[in-house]
C-alpha cells in the first residue's frame, strides 16, 4: 500500500469491511478510500471478491463487519434510506439489465422522472442529451432487445448518467459483449473518465486500466493484495500473485 495517495475528503471509504456467504468469507478486512474524481480499476482472478466489493458500495450486497461511508453517510442495514445514497451512485452491470418493456428513452427517463421528481419534459431532455453523449440518440425509440450488446451497454451507462450520479460503478461492463463491441463501450467509459467522473471499474480490460486509471487495485481471495498507479502496477508488480495474474492476462 505504498502508493496510497493522500486523501483529503474521500467520497467513499471502507473501514475493515468483511463479508461472508455462509461459511465462505468473500471479503476480508477491506480498507479503502476513494477520492472524488478518482478513477479506480479493480482486477483479480474470478472469485476474488471484486464484484462483491463494488456491490457493497451501493449496498446491493450487505457487509457484515466494518463500515462503509458514501458521501459521509454510513451504509448499514437499519439506515432508513439506502435509496438516497443509491441515487447518487450509478451502476453498470455485466448483463446491462435494461428494462426490456421500456424504450431506450423511457429507460433513461425512468430514474429522474420516478424518483427524482423531475417532470417528463425535463427528464426527456436530459435523456436525449445523455444518449447523445453515448452516441446513440437515434436509437431512442427502440426497445433494448432491438439493439446490439454494445449499444445496450451504452444505453445502460446513459441511464445511470441521467441520475447525475457522483460516482459510477462498473461491474465487468464488457465481459458479456462480443469482442467487436468492447471498444465502443470502453470509448464511452474513457470519455466519461475524461469528463471528471468518479469511477470504480471491475474489469479485465488492461488497456483501459493503463489509459484512465489513477489507481489499480488487485484483489485475490477477498483481500486487496496490491494497489498502485498503472505504471508501477504493470511494470513493477510487488506480489507474486500479481505477477502470476499479469502473466496470465497479458500473455
Amino acid at each position: 500500500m505504498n502508493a496510497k495517495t493522500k486523501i483529503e475528503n474521500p467520497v467513499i471509504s471502507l473501514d475493515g469491511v468483511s463479508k461472508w456467504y455462509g461459511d465462505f468469507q468473500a471479503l476480508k478486512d477491506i480498507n479503502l478510500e476513494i477520492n472524488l474524481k478518482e478513477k479506480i480499476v479493480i482486477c483479480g482472478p474470478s472469485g476474488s471478491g471484486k464484484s462483491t466489493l463494488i456491490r457493497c458500495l451501493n449496498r446491493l450486497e450487505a457487509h457484515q463487519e466494518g463500515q462503509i461511508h458514501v458521501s459521509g453517510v454510513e451504509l448499514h442495514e437499519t439506515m432508513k434510506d439506502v435509496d438516497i445514497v443509491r441515487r447518487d451512485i450509478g451502476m453498470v452491470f455485466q448483463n446491462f439489465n435494461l428494462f426490456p418493456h421500456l424504450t431506450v428513452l423511457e429507460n433513461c427517463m425512468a430514474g429522474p422522472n420516478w424518483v427524482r421528481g423531475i417532470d417528463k419534459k425535463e427528464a426527456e431532455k436530459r435523456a436525449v442529451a445523455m444518449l447523445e453523449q453515448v452516441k446513440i440518440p437515434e436509437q431512442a425509440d427502440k426497445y433494448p432487445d432491438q439493439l446490439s450488446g454494445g449499444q445496450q451497454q451504452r444505453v445502460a451507462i446513459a441511464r445511470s448518467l441521467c441520475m447525475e450520479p457522483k460516482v459510477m460503478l462498473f461491474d465487468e461492463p464488457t465481459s458479456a459483449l462480443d469482442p467487436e463491441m468492447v471498444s465502443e463501450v470502453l470509448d464511452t467509459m474513457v470519455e466519461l473518465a475524461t469528463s471528471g467522473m468518479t469511477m470504480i471499474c471491475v474489469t479485465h480490460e488492461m488497456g483501459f486500466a493503463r489509459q484512465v486509471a489513477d489507481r489499480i487495485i488487485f484483489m485475490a481471495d477477498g483481500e486487496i493484495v496490491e494497489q498502485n498507479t498503472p505504471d508501477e502496477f504493470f511494470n513493477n508488480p510487488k506480489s507474486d500473485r500479481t505477477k502470476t495474474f499479469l502473466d496470465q492476462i497479458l500473455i
Partner: protein
Amino acid sequence: MFVDTVIEDKSLHKPAFLLGLSIAVLAFFFAFNLTDTIFGEFLSPVIGNPKESGFFGRLVVSFVLSIIFVLNLLLISFARLKIQILIVWIELFFLFLAFAYSFDLELAYIFIGEPSKLWLMISKGLFTTIYISAVSIAIATAIAIVGAIAKLSNNGFAYAIASFYTSLFRGLPLLLQIYLIYMGLPQLGFMIDAIPSGIAALSLCYGAYMTEIFRAGIQSIPKGQWEASRALGFKFGLILRKIILPQSIPIIVPPTGNQFIAMLKDSSLVSVLGIWELMFMAKKIGSKDFNNLEMLLTAAMIYWALTIILEMIQARIERKYQQKA
C-alpha cells in the same frame, strides 16, 4: 414450437401401414355387432334383414364402415394443414351430435314455451353465470396480487397468512368451500345471501390458485431487473408496479386465462345454493317435465360456446403480448 424443416413421409401413404390400419379398424368394428344399428338398416339391401343377417351381415357392416373410415383418413391426409384441422373438427362435431341424437331427445322442447326455455337459459342463466364469474375473477385477481406479494415478502406475518390461505383454499374441494361459506358465516352472525357467498367461495378458491401463478410470474423476472431498479434508488412498490409486474403480465396471462375458463365452469357448483345460473336452471326446468337431458345438453352447449369464445379472446391477448415482448 419448432417445426422441423425436414418432411417425413406420411405413414398413411405407406401401403403396409395402410393395410395394417385397415385390418385393425375392421377388427374393431367387427368386435361390436353393429347390425342392429342405423348402419345395418342402411345396408339392408345387401344383407337383408339386419336381425337375421348373422356373421355375413356383421362382416359387411364392419367392412363398409372401415372402408369409409380409412378412405376418409386418406383423403384428409392430402389436404392442407388448415383444411385438415377444419374437416376433422367438423367430423368430430357431427359424431358428437350423432351421439346426442341417439339419446332420442325431444329437441323441440327447448324451443317451446313463452318465452322459450332456451331464451330463459340465455337471458337469465347465462347472464348470472357470466356475472358471477366476472366478479369472482376480478376479486381473485386482486387477492392474487396481494397474496403473491405477501408470499414473496420477508414479513413473517404476511408470508404465514398468505401461505395458510393458499394451502387451505387449494386443499379443500370447491363444493365444500361453497357450503362452508354459505352455512358457516351465518353461524358467526354474518347473514350472507347465496350470490355473495358463491362469489366469495369462487374468488377465494381461485384467488389461491392465482396467487401461485402470480408468484411464479413475478419470480420468473431475472434478478438483474431488481438490482438495476434498486441501484437507481427505486422503492419496492415502484419496482413492482413499473418494472416487475409489466414484465410478468405476458407470463401470467395464459394461465390466468385458463383459470378464468375453469372458473366459468366451476361456477356451476354454486347451483347448490339455488342461484339461478345455467346449471341450476337446466336442472330446474328440465326436471319439471322429465326432460332433464335436453336442458342439460343445452347448458352444455352454452358452456362450451362460451369457453370457445373465451379461448379466442385469450389467444388474441396472448398474441398481443407476444408481439410486444
